[in-house]
């Protein structure tokens, strides 16, 4: 294209043509049309042709003209040139080309403009295309596609630019725009999906109920999936991740559902267990056992459940327990009343006369009735246990219609019993006894407590004698009369007591002391009116009353004041001491009482101060926060200054502050560990944690606890931090559980090599945790746990065997006569010792299982020897633990002890717990351990003397790493009919079985060496008497005096259920 035509056609070009033909109408110029005013036609045509040639001459048909139009324009120019160059000129030809000449310049310019426009359009498309950004997160394939489109827009044609090309460029630009949007949308969707899925992965916290292996597997799989997700390019891959995540979620959901079902079932079981316990006092033993069996069956179903349906089945069973209990409880109420009645009826069988024959007949009758009563009760219990309380009641009612239903071995027995039951006098006696017990008996007790004459024993004996007269001799009228008289006497005595209480503690006043002395004399003579008179006489003198009032009040306050003064110091002590002393020196009664009142009003604050100070100091010591957090400064300043109330409040504030500090410290520790354990890629979170810790520390030092906690909480709520915390907490919890066992096991293991095998993996796990590799540390614990279980079993067996053999040795030395039976062949001492060495060798090389087997074999072989040893030592010490609590006793015997009070050794020694060792080796081993514990608490037990006045008993409880026994226990005492009175018994309606006891109770007593070789526990006085009775002088009375000689022996030794929670397997303290 020529330079002249490089610009698009503009108005100037047209102006040029228009100026050339000015004054002409639009269309063909006149000179071109041949019109005008030329005279010479030839000249005019020549001019006309020349003008035409002038017009077409500058027209350049080159590349600036679109190729498609170029030929047509050239043809037009040629036709004009031909017409204008003809010789001669032909007017008609010129006329024909004149319109062409008129439009040609415009067409040329216009064509050139169009081409330029196309060029500009394409350039604009190109620019637009370049302006389109590549969407973020676009994949390589998408970027390649976009690049292709860009290239299409920005094509560089080698030929002519056509409209089609412009259209193509526009279409390509449009396509590029659409593709870019599509890619952007796809990338956004993909990244959103990725982010959503990643968040879902982060939230995948293993359920609490998952096992350690499940947790680790899940954490690993989740970690892997996160990597896969992070690197996934295609949506398909991301969707595949989503499928995996769904699987994780389903797995967790499944575990959670199972867990929820288990928790729900266990909650219901726990409720049912509580219900059974709360109903234990309204159930008889058999029903209680049945209830426990139902609970046990349900618990077993829960334990064995693998699916939700399994838990549902357990829940259905549990749901049946409540209604069953209601029925059983209804029966129990009826049964108790029936037992009272039937027992009273039976007790009403008395001999017809005082002859031995009648007495024997009465005994037989009573025995027969008792057996029948027992049979009915057993049958009824069975029915009640089966959930048929109505039938059970009917069974009991047979007692009342015994005449027809009871096959009486002694003719007339039932008649007599039932007749006796209908004896109105007998029932009246029962009412009289109950009436006395519920009213006048309190007066009897009060007499003893106040130390008044006559001693409690005397009135108690009178009461017992009246009851016996009625119950044993059927002297109903006389017995009722005796009880009525005694009740009246007690009522009079109570009047005296009520008056006496006004003056008790005021013996410091001479007149009061004198009157009380006289009152006691009158009481000894049972002159209650006289006794009362002595006291009322005191009322007449105001001075006496005032002095007594003061003395009583001071005596009432003394205990508290003295105790507080011992436990207070500084200004606070003086604050209390001063008015306490002043009260004594005040002149007037009003001032004295007023000063005492001021002391009284100080007491609550003083108590609070002592309590709060103790607790605060204890917390302070435990938290070791004294330097940085001066929370007690104010309290101590108040205390020194004697400002008791302020000090008490300040100490309480300090306690609250320590509690908050403890929470804060825990949160900080958690967060610090979380920070340390976070992988490096979470540097932003780590930084945030660091900043938070710093800020929280500033808040804490300023004691802005809420601010500090909120800051810590905000970071702790981060999903990544939460996941990490869960992992750490799991690890900690597991360590805590294992550590207790490990400590116990290490304590029992003796060989260093054996200990090392336990310690090494534990240390490895802790080291890994220290380096924040909790997953790896958990894996180490996975292998440590079974190893520890093996070591634990081994250590238990070893300890049993070792201590049993040691105890046997000791006993063989102490009781030479037992040595032969202890080491009877084939288990002689040499063989047992050799077996021990071999068993220990196995453990040293790491084979705990084999070592345990050998120790078990030793224990088994030593069983007979141990039994002999235990019995020998028990005989030697005069104890009763083997016979009463040894493994030779049966569970039935222990239950019997609760239900009847009869110990397995046949003696009636009621308790509310009855326990036994599971193994004779445990008994001997724990006995030795208890002796060691006792020696550590009271070194006297290793000696052979005591001093007069010292304690003669030492009680210790020894905690063990393993269960050694089981127990039956109850808190539902049976109402018993004793000496004509129904009262809370020493035996029990039911029992609870408590296995897995890990604590033993041991009581050591000091047995005095004495001339009669009496092995009982004696008091110093009794021991002295024994010496004198034998004609000897007791050691302390000798000259020079000696300590009492003797020895400490084990008197009681048994597994104790006190404070034991069978659910957690732990003791409450």
């Amino acid at each position, binding site marked *: 294209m020529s330079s002249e035509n490089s610009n698009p056609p503009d108005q100037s070009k047209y102006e040029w043509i228009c100026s050339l033909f000015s004054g002409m109408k639009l269309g063909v110029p006149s000179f071109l049309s041949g019109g005008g005013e030329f005279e010479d036609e030839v000249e005019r045509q020549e001019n006309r042709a020349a003008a035409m040639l002038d017009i077409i001459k500058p027209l350049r048909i080159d590349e600036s003209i679109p190729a498609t139009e170029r030929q047509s324009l050239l043809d037009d120019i040629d036709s004009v040139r031909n017409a204008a160059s003809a010789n001669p000129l032909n007017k008609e030809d010129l006329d024909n080309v004149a319109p062409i000449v008129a439009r040609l310049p415009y067409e040329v310019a216009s064509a050139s403009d169009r081409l330029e426009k196309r060029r500009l359009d394409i350039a604009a498309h190109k620019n637009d295309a370049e302006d389109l950004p590549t969407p973020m997160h676009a994949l390589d394939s998408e970027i390649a596609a976009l690049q292709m489109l860009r290239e299409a827009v920005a094509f560089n044609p080698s030929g002519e630019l056509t409209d089609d090309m412009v259209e193509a460029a526009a279409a390509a630009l449009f396509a590029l725009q659409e593709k870019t949007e599509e890619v952007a949308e796809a990338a956004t969707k993909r990244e959103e999906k990725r982010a959503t899925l990643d968040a879902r992965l982060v939230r995948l916290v293993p359920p609490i109920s998952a096992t350690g292996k499940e947790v680790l597997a899940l954490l690993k799989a989740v970690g892997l999936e996160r990597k896969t997700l992070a690197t996934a390019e295609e949506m398909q891959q991301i969707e595949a991740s989503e499928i995996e995540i769904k699987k994780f979620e389903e797995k967790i959901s499944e575990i959670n559902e199972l867990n929820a079902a288990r928790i729900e079932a266990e909650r219901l079981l726990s409720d049912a267990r509580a219900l059974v316990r709360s109903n234990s006092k309204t159930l008889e033993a058999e029903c209680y056992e049945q209830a426990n069996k139902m609970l046990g069956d349900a618990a077993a179903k829960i334990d064995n459940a693998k699916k939700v349906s399994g838990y549902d089945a357990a829940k259905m069973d549990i749901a049946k327990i409540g209604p069953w209990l209601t029925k059983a409880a209804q029966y129990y109420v009826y049964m108790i009343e029936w037992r009272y009645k039937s027992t009273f009826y039976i007790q009403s069988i008395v001999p017809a006369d005082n002859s031995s024959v009648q007495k024997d007949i009465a005994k037989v009758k009573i025995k027969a009735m008792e057996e029948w009563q027992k049979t009915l009760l057993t049958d009824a219990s069975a029915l009640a246990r089966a959930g048929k309380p109505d039938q059970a009641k009917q069974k009991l009612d047979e007692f009342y219609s015994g005449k027809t239903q009871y096959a009486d071995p002694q003719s007339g027995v039932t008649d007599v019993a039932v007749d006796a039951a209908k004896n109105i006098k007998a029932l009246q006696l029962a009412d009289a006894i109950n009436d006395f017990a519920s009213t006048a008996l309190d007066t009897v007790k009060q007499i003893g407590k106040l130390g008044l004459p006559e001693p409690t*024993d005397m009135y108690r004996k009178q009461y017992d004698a009246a009851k016996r007269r009625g119950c044993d001799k059927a002297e109903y009228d006389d017995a009722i009369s005796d009880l009525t008289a005694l009740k009246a006497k007690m009522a009079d005595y109570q009047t005296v007591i009520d008056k006496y209480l006004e003056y*008790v503690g005021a013996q410091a006043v001479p007149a009061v002391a004198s009157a009380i002395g006289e009152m006691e004399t009158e009481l000894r003579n049972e002159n209650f009116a006289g006794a009362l008179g002595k006291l009322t006489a005191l009322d007449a003198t105001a001075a006496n009353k005032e002095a007594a009032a003061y003395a009583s009040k001071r005596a009432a306050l003394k*205990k508290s004041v003295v105790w507080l003064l011992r436990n207070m110091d500084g200004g606070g002590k003086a604050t209390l001491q001063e008015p306490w002393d002043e009260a004594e020196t005040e002149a007037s009664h009003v001032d004295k009482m007023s000063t005492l009142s001021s002391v009284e009003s100080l007491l609550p604050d003083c*108590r609070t101060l002592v309590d709060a100070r103790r607790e605060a100091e204890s*917390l302070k010591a435990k938290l070791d926060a004294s330097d940085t957090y001066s929370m007690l400064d104010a309290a101590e300043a108040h205390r020194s200054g004697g400002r008791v109330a302020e000090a008490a409040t300040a100490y309480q504030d300090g306690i609250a502050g320590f509690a908050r500090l403890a929470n804060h410290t825990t949160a900080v520790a958690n967060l610090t560990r979380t920070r340390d354990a976070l992988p490096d890629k979470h540097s932003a979170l780590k930084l945030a944690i660091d900043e938070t810790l710093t800020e929280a520390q500033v808040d804490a030092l300023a004691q802005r606890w809420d601010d500090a906690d909120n800051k810590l909480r905000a970071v702790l709520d981060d999903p990544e931090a939460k996941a990490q915390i869960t992992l750490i907490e799991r690890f900690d919890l597991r360590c805590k559980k294992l550590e207790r066992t490990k400590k116990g096991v290490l304590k029992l293991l003796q060989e260093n090599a054996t200990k090392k095998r336990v310690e090494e993996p534990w240390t490895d796990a802790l080291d890994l945790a220290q380096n924040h590799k909790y997953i790896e540390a958990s894996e180490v614990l996975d292998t440590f746990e079974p190893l520890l279980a093996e070591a634990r079993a081994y250590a238990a067996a070893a300890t049993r065997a070792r201590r049993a053999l040691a105890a046997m040795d000791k006993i063989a030395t102490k009781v030479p006569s037992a040595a032969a039976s202890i080491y009877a062949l084939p288990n002689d001492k040499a063989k047992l010792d050799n077996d021990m060495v071999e068993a220990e060798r196995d453990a040293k090389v790491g084979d705990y299982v084999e070592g345990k087997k050998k120790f078990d074999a030793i224990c088994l072989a030593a069983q007979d020897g141990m039994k002999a040893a235990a019995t020998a030592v028990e005989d030697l010490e005069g104890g009763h633990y083997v016979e009463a609590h040894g493994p030779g006793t049966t569970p039935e015997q222990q239950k019997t002890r609760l239900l009847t009070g009869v110990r397995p050794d046949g003696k009636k*020694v009621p308790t*509310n717990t009855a326990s036994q060792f599971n193994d004779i080796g445990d008994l001997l081993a724990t006995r030795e351990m208890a002796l060691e514990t006792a020696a550590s608490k009271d070194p006297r037990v290793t000696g052979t003397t005591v001093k007069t006045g010292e304690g003669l008993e030492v*009680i210790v409880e020894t905690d063990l790493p393993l269960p050694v026994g089981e127990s039956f226990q109850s808190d539902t005492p049976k109402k018993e009919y004793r000496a004509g009175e129904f009262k809370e018994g020493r035996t029990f309606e039911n029992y609870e079985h408590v296995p897995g006891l890990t604590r033993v*109770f041991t009581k050591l007593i000091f047995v005095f060496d004495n001339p009669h070789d009496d092995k009982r526990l004696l008091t110093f006085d009794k021991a002295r008497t024994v010496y004198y009775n034998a004609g000897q002088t007791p050691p302390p009375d000798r000259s020079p005096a000696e300590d009492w000689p003797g020895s400490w022996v084990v008197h009681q030794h048994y597994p*104790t259920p006190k404070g034991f929670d069978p659910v957690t397997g732990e003791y409450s303290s």
Partner: protein
Amino acid sequence: MKLPRKMVDDYLMYITSIELEDVDDPLEEMSVYDTAIDSMAYRARAEGNLDDLQLALDSLISDPSGRLSQFFGTGYPFSENELVEVLTYACVRIWPAEPVSGPGEAMPVEFVSPVEP
């Protein structure tokens, strides 16, 4: 006042672990408790807790209802009333010159488990 429950329990165990053979009325012969009471007092004195023991006993005697049962032991199954009688006897034996508080008269005592920070 607050006293550690375990400490009180350890002392009372001397009494609550007593086994009585064939006894119909555990209050009939109070001297059977003498050795246990003396041993309890000896240990409390040796451990510097005799004052606290007195405070605990006085409080339990004065207000036993619902509080004494937590100290029931593994020995003779005393009723609450019976144990109050025995504890009263113990107080009179250990501190003969100091009267035992009547109902509601003793210094209020709360038996607590150790506080863990």
